[in-house]
């Protein structure tokens, strides 16, 4: 689960990590007006979501709240010098579509805009805590230069990257934070503040069950301060059950279909193709998408129907797949293990009948009682095309989709 920048910054504030002063989070055009009207005077009207009273004057920074790095280059970050500019930027940014190197060819619609006081940046630093999978530990990663993505740093300037394992129980130790500060050439004036930020970043990681907590950049200001300009937090989906506060935040990442699927216990991810897929097991589901591609087609989705695929689950899976209007054929690939093929076949027959499926359906069953399963499909009177191997099924599905 990924948090938006302003949500992450709220957590930073709770842990004493300084962030720029927030003016407002703008969600509608009306919010813009209200924000302007109240700017610099009384506290904002309660209608303005998440807004706070303001003090001082510009410049302000206007930031599109989307889950992708590289927003700045795509027009998602603007500096406003005057109130008129501020209003303009807010209005233009709301509803804008942003595509960056991290959105993989798709554009994200801006639904929320964060307005904060701009910072006079003197120097940028990169700092994050990630999960190091092979060492099975949280790892603090920092770089004396910030702004770029850490992948770029790793490629271009690996010698500048500092890594520090974080003990899951003790957190980042004082000496580690000091060592880090010296390695990054942190000036004496902000040294204690920096070590506190580093230790608290590790604390956030552990206490929020995160898989990533990142500040990029952490800025040293011209006024001699230190402040987190950006904030990124990703929470481990497996831990959401005990992160009640975070779990109550809206899911910004999933599409409507994906959310619906999640509610009924089906793992669905929408893709760009036109062959709907229903598979049991995540690995086999991925391999099925790959096989479809190898056969010259493109899958419309990843769908893991789960281990105990019964009639109800299969019906729901069909309904979810068909919500995507681009779907021209459906490929079902199920390896019946504990769940027997004849039961699964019965489920497919009942489900297709129930929803009156018109889309060409290709089924590949394998495993326990496969013969009986295939008989059931054959004798169902429904137009179901069967295949003996995944390869054959994929080829048939590709043919039907064209």
């Amino acid at each position, binding site marked *: 689960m990924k948090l938006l920048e302003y949500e992450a910054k709220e957590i930073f504030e709770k842990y004493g990590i300084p962030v720029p002063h927030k003016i407002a989070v703008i969600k509608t055009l009306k919010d813009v007006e209200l924000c302007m009207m109240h700017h610099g005077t009384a506290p904002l009207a309660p209608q303005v979501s998440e807004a706070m009273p303001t003090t001082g004057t510009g410049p302000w920074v206007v930031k599109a709240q989307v889950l992708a790095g590289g927003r700045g280059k795509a027009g998602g970050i603007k500096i406003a010098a005057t109130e008129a500019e501020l209003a303009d930027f807010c209005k233009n940014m709301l509803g804008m579509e942003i595509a960056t190197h991290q959105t993989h060819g798709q554009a994200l619609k801006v639904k929320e805009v964060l307005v904060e006081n701009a910072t006079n940046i003197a120097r940028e630093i990169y700092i994050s805590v990630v999960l190091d999978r092979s060492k099975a530990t949280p790892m603090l990663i920092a770089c004396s230069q910030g702004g770029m993505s850490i992948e770029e740093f790793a490629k271009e300037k690996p010698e500048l990257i500092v890594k520090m394992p974080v003990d899951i129980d003790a957190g980042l130790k004082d000496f580690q934070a000091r060592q880090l500060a010296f390695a990054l050439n942190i000036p004496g004036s902000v040294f204690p503040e920096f070590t506190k930020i580093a230790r608290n970043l590790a604390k956030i990681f552990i206490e929020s069950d995160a898989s990533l907590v990142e500040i990029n950049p952490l800025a040293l200001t011209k006024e001699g301060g230190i402040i987190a300009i950006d904030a990124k937090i990703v929470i481990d989906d497996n831990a959401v059950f005990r992160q009640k506060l975070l779990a109550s935040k809206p899911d910004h990442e999933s599409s409507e279909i994906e959310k619906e699927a999640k509610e009924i216990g089906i793992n669905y991810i929408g893709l760009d193709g036109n062959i709907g897929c229903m598979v049991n097991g995540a690995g086999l589901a991925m391999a099925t998408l790959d096989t479809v591609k190898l056969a010259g087609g493109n899958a419309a989705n990843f769908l893991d129907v789960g281990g105990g695929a019964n009639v109800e689950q299969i019906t729901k899976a069909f309904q979810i797949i068909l919500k995507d209007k681009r779907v021209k054929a459906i490929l079902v690939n199920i390896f019946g293990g504990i769940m027997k093929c004849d039961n699964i076949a019965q489920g497919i027959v009942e489900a297709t009948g129930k929803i009156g499926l018109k889309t060409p359906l290709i089924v590949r069953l394998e*495993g326990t009682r496969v013969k009986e399963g295939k008989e059931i499909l054959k004798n169902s009177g429904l137009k179901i095309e069967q295949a003996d191997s995944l390869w054959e099924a994929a080829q048939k599905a590709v043919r039907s989709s064209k």
Partner: protein
Amino acid sequence: MAILLNKNSKIIVQGFTGGQGTFHSQQCIEYGSKIAGGVTPGKGGTVHMGLPVFNTMAEAVKKTGADAALIFVPPPYAADSIMEAASAGVKHVICITEGIPVLDMVRVKKFLKGLESGADGAAGEGRKVYLVGPNCPGVITPEECKAGIMPGYIHKKGSVGIVSRSGTLTYEAVWQLTKEGLGQSTVVGIGGDPVQGMNFTEALSLFEKDPETRAVVMIGEIGGNAEEEAARFVKENMKKPVFSFVAGKTAPPGRRMGHAGAIVEGGSGAHSSKIEALKKAGITVIENLSELGKTVSEKLKEKIYT
């Protein structure tokens, strides 16, 4: 021989009396596995499916002499169950549970490392515990011992070792091999989580030492760099032929493909880098899953007759 489990392995099931625990224990018993009993805190002293139930792992191990644990405990408590099993003295812990928080597994790994090194305070006993999983189908040594949720009948005793990050994908591979007449020495599902017990490298090293294993099939997926590390290990340490399939070639970056570990992040974990590393290590890479059984069969015949 085989690896990890054999016909003498004695298993205690944790989460024994729950729905999953009951169903799958029954299946394991029918396959011929020696299930010695189970643990459900608070139900100690009762009998379930004709087998004794204990309150703690310590008591279960003491009374039955079990050397393996099979875990079906729900995610919030599963990590603790792993540590309970390890400290009770079993050598093998197989955790089926899906959805354990990653940081819980970080704590488990730290605990197991402490047990092994003897350096982590009082816990240190210089004892190596083999953890398989979590979020995995388990381990099976065909016709000897099944500790997991895989369908037993698709397996056949033989000499191909299999290690895999996926469940049903493993069954697919096993089934193709069995249909080609190629049996398996042991099939290990290491699971799809980012932090796990046994990794590819450890399993490969056990297979390399096992006289019954002649070849190994390694089934990977996108995310992390376990396949790259395994490739390095194969290149430097293995004489037996290794075959590999990696799922997720067409998966979009940044999205978690079912398994918590199957996600391409920040340029790492991509399919292409894994395939490249595997090929460089001399591993036979299978691009089309449907050809896995045939490819292994043909290559192994070649090896025997030429």
